[in-house]
């Protein structure tokens, strides 16, 4: 199971990095989205992958790792997801404004000289 997720993270990272290095702004946005999935999954996986572990504590009881999942990576990833959304929105708007100002959707604001 770990292998599946690890390969999945690898594929997401590879696709993300490939797109990140492309010249068009839309490709970069999509690339960053894929990269952030990969990063989130990676952070999440540091807590260990456990299917069927309880995520919610029994009331009145101090939880132990033996019975429950590790909440810390989850909390980190949760904020990362929301921040990721905000920065994607910001990037999109900046790129749209840049496209309006420069007339091109090349990441440098001008087409490469041929």
């Amino acid at each position, binding site marked *: 199971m770990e292998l599946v*997720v690890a390969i999945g993270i690898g594929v997401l990272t590879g696709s993300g990095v490939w797109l990140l*290095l492309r010249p068009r702004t839309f490709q970069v946005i999509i690339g960053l989205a894929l990269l952030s999935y990969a990063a989130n999954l990676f952070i999440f996986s540091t807590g260990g992958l*456990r299917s069927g572990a309880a995520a919610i504590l029994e009331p009145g009881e101090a*939880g132990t790792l033996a019975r429950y999942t590790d909440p810390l990576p989850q909390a980190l990833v949760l904020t990362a997801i929301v921040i990721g959304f905000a920065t994607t929105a910001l990037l999109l708007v900046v790129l749209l404004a840049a496209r309006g100002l420069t007339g091109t959707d090349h990441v440098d604001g001008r087409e490469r000289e041929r």
Partner: protein
Amino acid sequence: MPDAVLLLALVGLPFAAAITAGLLPIGARDLASGLAGAVALIGLALVWTAYPTVSEGGVLRAELAWMPGLGLNLVLRMDGFAWLFAGMVSGIGALVVLYARYYMSADDPVPRFFAFLLAFMGSMTGVVISGNLIQLAFFWELTSLFSFLLIGYWHHTAAARDGARMALTVTAAGGLALFGGILVLGHIVGSYDLDIVLAAGDRIREHPLYLPALLLVVLGALTKSAQFPFHFWLPHAMAAPTPVSAYLHSATLVKAGVFLLARLWPVMAGTDAWTWTVGLAGLITLLIGAYIAIFQNDLKGLLAYSTISHLGLITLLLGLKSELALVAAVFHIINHAAFKCSLFMAAGIIDHETGTRDIRRLSGLNQTMPFTARLAMVAAAAMAGVPLLNGFISKEMFFAEALSATVPVSPLLNILPLAAMLASAFSVVYSLRFIHGAFFGPVPKDLPRTPHEPASWMRFPVEILVLTCIMVGLLPAATVGPYLAVAVRSVLGDDVPYYSLAVWHGFNLPLLMSLIALAGGVAIYLLLQRRLSGMEGPPLLRRLEGQRIFERVMVFLSWRLARRLEGVIGTRRLQPQLRLIVGIAILAGAATAWLRGFGPGNLLPSPVDPVLALVWTVGAACALGAAWLAKFHRLAALILVGGVGLVVCVTFVWFSAPDLALTQLTVEVVTTVLLLLGLRWLPKRVQIPGERGPEVLTRTRRLRDLALAIGSGAGLAALSFAVMTRTPPELLAQHFLERAYTEGGGTNAVNVILVDFRGFDTLGEIFVVAAVALTTYALLRRFRPAPDSVELPEQQRDQAAEAAAAGHGEAGRVADWLLVPFTLTRLLFPVMLIVAVFLLLRGHDLPGGGFSAGMVVAIAIILQYMIGGTDWTEDRLRLRPQLWVGTGLLVASGTGLAAWLFGRPFMTSYFAYAELPVIGKVPTASALIFDIGVFALVVGATLLMLIALAHQSVRGHRASPRRAAASAGDD
């Protein structure tokens, strides 16, 4: 008065008064000068009350805890030496304030001047009574800063700006070196406390790091005291108002360097390295400064170079391995302050009353301002070392030291007395030039103003200082003797050598040297007199202009070198930069793996579940498809990214993270809608007809990127596999799990971490989200699309045409075609809101919380927009996202602040369970209120971004004007 109060008042009063003076109205010259004078006099009185203690060898000390954990405390410490300097700073400060009251024109913003002057006074006092070296460096830099402001006081003149900039660059750079030296010293000694450092002399001198520490400290001292080769800033600082020159550039600021050298003399001096660096710099400066001073045509320029030369003398004395030389140095510090300050004031009076400081234009002022002339003559005679004046006595001591000095190399030993005599003769020459040039000769014509005596109060400070020169010169032991003894004893401790302060020591070699120097100086002046006024700058040394070198270095560093470096290693193109970052990341990961070893962990991987494997096959295919299609078909790529998001979401569910899955799902929807809204403003792909496959260069570039992509993907896959097969560290997880319910009052540990344990982080995060939302909103308000995106897209035009044909009104709405979804969406709206409230309320105990609830509300509203259309929705719903954002931030921060009301630290939470009718038991932790703040913010921020972008489609656009013309040519 307790020591602590006295010392704190001594440093604090000037700063407090500086702020007060800065707030005075611009014309309040008398008020500002009165305030400054009062502060200086109070300072003097405070210093005086400390005399009984320090005269018995005592030390006043005040210590305030600052960063005790780092061994750093705010320590104020006044021993005899610091006492002497503090007295000079306050005493001469009071005289300068009086002088400045009459010197400064009522047209200038005088309160600002006094504000700077007072702040400088405080900083300088801070330097001399700091009992902690780091604190000393801090005040040291403050003196540089206020010196900069004072030199640049008349900032409308270019000379003032350039002089100020140069002084700041040189002295602040030196201050940085000093700070480095102090850190090394602190490292050697293990403490920055001056008392401890002063007790660790042997350890410092024998430490392998002694030389770096010495060089850095000396660099700081030499730049501050304008010693060769850093002397060039001082003449340019003469653009300052003359009171500033009299105060900073003769008596205080430039003395900070020699103060520091004397302060650290007991622990750093005595080595060959010290003598070579300090002594040699002093010797060169002594000669060069005196030589150049002869050829100055500006009165203040002459005094500036003479100051450089005298500071060189003091530095040279400090560089010699002799206690007596230190006594002479301290004595000369006092004497120089007295005569040079009065000379600067006299030069200022001449400038003030005649309108010029050019020696070539001035003459015969003896007849129009006889009092000033007499005062200046006495002061200049003291500078030249004429007997019966104070300069003579310290010069005699200098000669005696030069004769008996023990320096490392014998040639230097032999030239030292000669050099001393030569410099002394030079000082006679420039003193004569000052006096003869300004006061003798025919009555001047065509001066800018008619010369006359100044206001008597303006002359008063000069009178006091000149009187000091005479008194010390006549009765050295009775006047300055006790204070000098106190100062010297506090530096040297019990090693104070025998010295005699007397005018007449019998007919000895130093006296002979003095007489030769006097006679020689007069002779040189008589020889040069006629030619001097025709000369521009000193012969032989004309090319040695530190200023030009400085400017060249500055231009080289800040312009040429920077440009060249940018040309070599910089690029403005994004792709190479990103390639570099990715490449370095891969290398860093690979290097760590190679150095530290790498392999699978201790846990056996769990068996592969075919369902999840299938899900991830789809996920990987979606990712690869998105990577491929992002160029050719944006919509398809976007849909595929959505697919990847769903797979990630399923993975979260699979591995027991319901909260993450919920948030991921909602964010996925919002992100997709957002990107969909953006698609409309991106250009169509232009296929150049007849173009064959990509060029070779492009193909190699792609291969390289592919390698980078595969490398990073494989690396992260291997890394995550290695991480997942190791037992995760338990410390933190255990901590949070144990306390989530017992101390946080919630069973959903993730949510409790977010809103309680790490609530401050979340608060920061929502501020970021708010800032981002406002930024996107602001950017979109001035949004100008590219010319080819202004028109309605093809699809919308077709739709409108069809709608018109079918008689559905002008625009035609989605609702007309999609009636069933439209109805369903309207019905779903209240349901979604209830779901959101449900998620919000149960968040503390069950999956949910402010983030996902906020997203659900945003989705509910955006759905109405999508199906009903912007106008239809806004007719019915009055949304004010900014209000939501603001309320959210206020509620969240307010919850955090409320803890203060109960005397708890910021963001402390409280919880209890409340019994509500119908609904039942509800957790009412204060964290819930915080979560409501988060919820409101997420709703507001998300809507603000989405609606701002959506509105671009319905508002009229003008194309970006600049590009409209340009792109016409492109297409």
